[in-house]
């Protein structure tokens, strides 16, 4: 038996810290809108009910119930609804109803002055990675990567306790309270201890952001990635994009979330596992890496604050990712 692997500490000074929007309290107002895919008012009911029970009030945007093919309204309708929520001083958070596809089509038409004056939580994942990347890179304001309205069950008895936990942790996060995330240990993990601002999201979307002014600056950060429905070769290609665009070279740690992988076509077996695909890109960096983190298109998708400083501790028997204390500044 060899001893425990050395735990490396990789903490570097953080430049230009993000501002963290104010926490939510009882009675605070949360806006819900559809910047990407569509969602009906009926499908929205479980989320409205649950969020009401958290003590928050809900304001529904005009795009709820709108449909333009797969979109929650035309580009202009979605842009205008989101803009209105960014500008509304009453709103303390904007929850994107669902992902799908479409945020990129409205992103460059959004005005951020009011949001920068008075930051609020922008919440969602998957296609909403466009917003996380853009806000993090350009505005340096923290956002919340979490489940969205389409994951709130109509019948809570039908979901697993951890799935329910990962939804209700949105409330905990928004109130500024800490919670712990249960992580299973994957034997391919690379042990280590690292600290840094957490950034990331959907891998395919990060590839699509590469080279644009909305791509995350990943230097000295903890990076997390997740994806769903992609072939292994496509995930490999995405990671090569990030690597060749210099987005993996200087990360402090890597958190690999859930990957619902599309099976290889018969005769076209890719021949590498997800873990192998990831590790060959980062093996030489000397950073901690963990797999199977409960974030992604799966029942257990815990909220993570993009732009907030976290500590990642990967040990042979335990993985922990938690907000660091006392890093980052709060507005006003």
């Amino acid at each position, binding site marked *: 038996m060899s001893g425990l692997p050395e735990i490396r500490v990789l903490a570097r000074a953080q430049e230009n810290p993000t501002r963290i929007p104010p926490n939510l309290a009882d009675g605070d107002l949360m806006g819900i809108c559809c910047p990407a895919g569509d969602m009906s008012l009926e499908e929205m009911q479980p989320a409205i009910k649950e969020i009401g029970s958290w003590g928050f009030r809900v304001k529904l945007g005009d795009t709820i119930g709108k449909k*333009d*093919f*797969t979109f929650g309204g035309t580009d202009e309708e979605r842009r205008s609804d989101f803009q209105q929520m960014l500008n509304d001083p009453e709103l303390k958070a904007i929850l994107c109803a669902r992902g799908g*596809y479409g945020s*990129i*089509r409205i992103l*460059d038409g959004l005005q951020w002055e009011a949001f920068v004056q008075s930051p609020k939580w922008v919440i969602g994942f998957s296609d909403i990675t466009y917003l996380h990347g853009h806000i993090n890179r350009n505005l340096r304001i923290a956002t919340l990567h979490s489940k969205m309205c389409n994951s709130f069950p109509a019948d809570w008895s039908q979901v697993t306790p951890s799935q329910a936990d990962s939804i209700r942790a949105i409330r905990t996060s928004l109130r500024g309270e800490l919670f712990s995330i249960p992580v299973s240990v994957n034997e391919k993990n690379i042990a280590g201890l690292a600290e840094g601002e957490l950034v990331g999201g959907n891998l395919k979307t990060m*590839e*699509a*952001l*590469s*080279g*644009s*002014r*909305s*791509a995350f600056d990943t230097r000295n950060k903890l990076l997390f990635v997740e994806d769903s429905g992609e072939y292994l*070769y496509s995930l*490999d*290609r*995405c990671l*090569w*994009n990030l690597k*060749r*665009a*210099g*987005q993996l070279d200087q990360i402090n740690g890597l958190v690999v979330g859930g990957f619902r992988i599309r099976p*290889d076509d018969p005769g*076209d*077996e*890719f*021949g*590498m596992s997800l873990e192998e695909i990831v590790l060959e890109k980062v093996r030489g960096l000397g950073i901690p890496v963990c797999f199977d983190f409960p974030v992604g298109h799966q029942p257990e998708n815990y909220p993570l604050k993009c732009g907030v400083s976290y500590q990642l501790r990967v040990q042979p028997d335990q993985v922990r990712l938690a907000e660091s204390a006392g890093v980052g500044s709060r507005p006003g």
Partner: protein
Amino acid sequence: MTTIPSYLQPGDRIGMTCPGGHMSLASAQPCIDTFRQWGYDVQVGQTIGDQSSNYFSGSDDERLQDLQQMLDDDQVRAVFCARGGYGLSRIIDRVQFESFRKNPKWIIGFSDVTVLHTHVYVNFRVATLHAPMASAFPNGESANPYILSLKAALEGKKYRYQWPVNQFDRRGEAVGELTGGNLSLLAHLVGSRSDCKTRGRILLLEDVGEYLYNIDRMMHQLKRSRKLERLAGMIIGSFTENKDTTRPFGLSAYEIIYEAVRDYDFPLGFGFPSGHVRENYALKLGLGHKLRIGRNKASLEE
């Protein structure tokens, strides 16, 4: 100025390699036979018919070594990629181009080979050939006009291709170096040191088997990384086997592309015979071209 590799003479050697997906020797044989009929010597690389058990035509090292040997060997006058698929991204940063720069030669292929096309063009300014690969040759197709356009290109003949106009065309004339290729790969390369340069150039796009929403996403990526705003012109090849979401996206591939470049005024021609179809003319990427999109006809002249 872009360097033009020497055109081929009878007896010159073509190296055939598989830098990406697997290809059996039997599938490559009609192509090998045709090149020999054209009077060329063919070196069949180790990666053709490789015994690998997975998707690739050999390990990264094997594919790299095969390609590297052909780039370095002065006897090889052209490197023909027998198949695309996926794989060049995994090895491109380990390919050494010193001998190639001293002694440029034609690199031929399309689809995944877009990685080589843009890498060689932006880093070394050497022309390459966007052309049919080995799977286009079997079943009596080896003398069709598209395969013969590859033969003519290798011999140094200049071309002028004509094709019918399309309802989404934007008329006009443009002059510029031709660049581009597979949309998925061009999007994938953004931000890397193989990223295409498009300003003042004529951009070619084609793709196969993508979701319509993903075509939209990639067009937005090119637009947001400022690759579309200063084009001299644009030609759109085939977008075949498109996939759609359960609820339809609502626009065709050509409509998506049209919409992405609606705000610009460069000439735009749809339906150029290039892509993952039989109609796939050889194009000399990196060389100056004249594009004419007229009322009744569109043409592209080297």
